[in-house]
């Protein structure tokens, strides 16, 4: 684990919809393309092979006209509650990062929790749920609240 200690970014949002609906919005390309990315980024293509070991790609047209492709493969696929996948940016960094998304039903809606970890090693296959927990120590100021 020593090489995997790395910083993480966490974002969470309570959304008045079921976990299944959110899971679908996250994993069906036609839906994903409608909301994906921050303001100014347009998703121009998405392909998703939703199964453990399956790959995905998401094309992002940046505000400055650059096309950035995000690729990776699925490590955990547990509809409608959990997803975990590697994350690489093309062209660019070669070390895979990892994104884990949890959809937790609560208060009549669902809390979506995204954890984006920067994995320093290549062992993205290990599925320790605890992996990111230790990373959060000292990171509370980076935890996203809004």
């Amino acid at each position: 684990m020593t090489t995997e200690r790395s910083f993480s970014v966490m974002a969470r949002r309570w959304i008045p919809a079921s976990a299944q609906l959110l899971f679908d919005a996250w994993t069906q390309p036609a839906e994903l393309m409608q909301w994906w990315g921050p303001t100014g980024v347009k998703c121009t293509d998405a392909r998703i092979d939703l199964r453990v070991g399956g790959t995905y790609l998401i094309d992002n047209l940046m505000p400055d006209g650059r096309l950035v492709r995000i690729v990776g493969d699925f490590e955990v696929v547990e509809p409608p509650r959990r997803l975990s996948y590697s994350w690489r940016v093309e062209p660019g960094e070669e070390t895979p990062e990892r994104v884990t998304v949890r959809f937790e039903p609560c208060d009549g809606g669902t809390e979506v929790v995204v954890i984006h970890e920067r994995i320093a090693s290549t062992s993205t296959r290990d599925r320790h749920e605890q992996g990111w927990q230790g990373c959060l120590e000292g990171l509370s100021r980076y935890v996203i609240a809004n």
Partner: protein
Amino acid sequence: MATDRLLNETFAALADPTRRAILARLATGECTVNELAAPFDISLPAISRHLKVLEQASLIVKTRDGQRRRCRLDPLALDRAADWLQFHRRFWNESLDRLAVHLRHTRKSKEIPHGPYRKARRGKK
């Protein structure tokens, strides 16, 4: 890519509380290795090992002033780490905002008839 490796080293270096404390001290100004070691209940060699990790991650620069070894913060690597965090923080927060709006505008989101509507509850760890 070299910058990518450097970023990994930066994050790994920052993952240790003693090293973060050293950086916090250096943020207030340059100082000698002995001054840095003083507040810590660990040996000088142990401090030196931490300093080496910080130096390899380009977080600090060591200089020699006669017999004294001095350290100062190199803000560039920290900036890069902060940029990474900032970029992803914004990426996911704005994506989640858009996801919430997207679902609000689809018929299907009415499937929870009596759920309390609240706009983005603030979560705590």
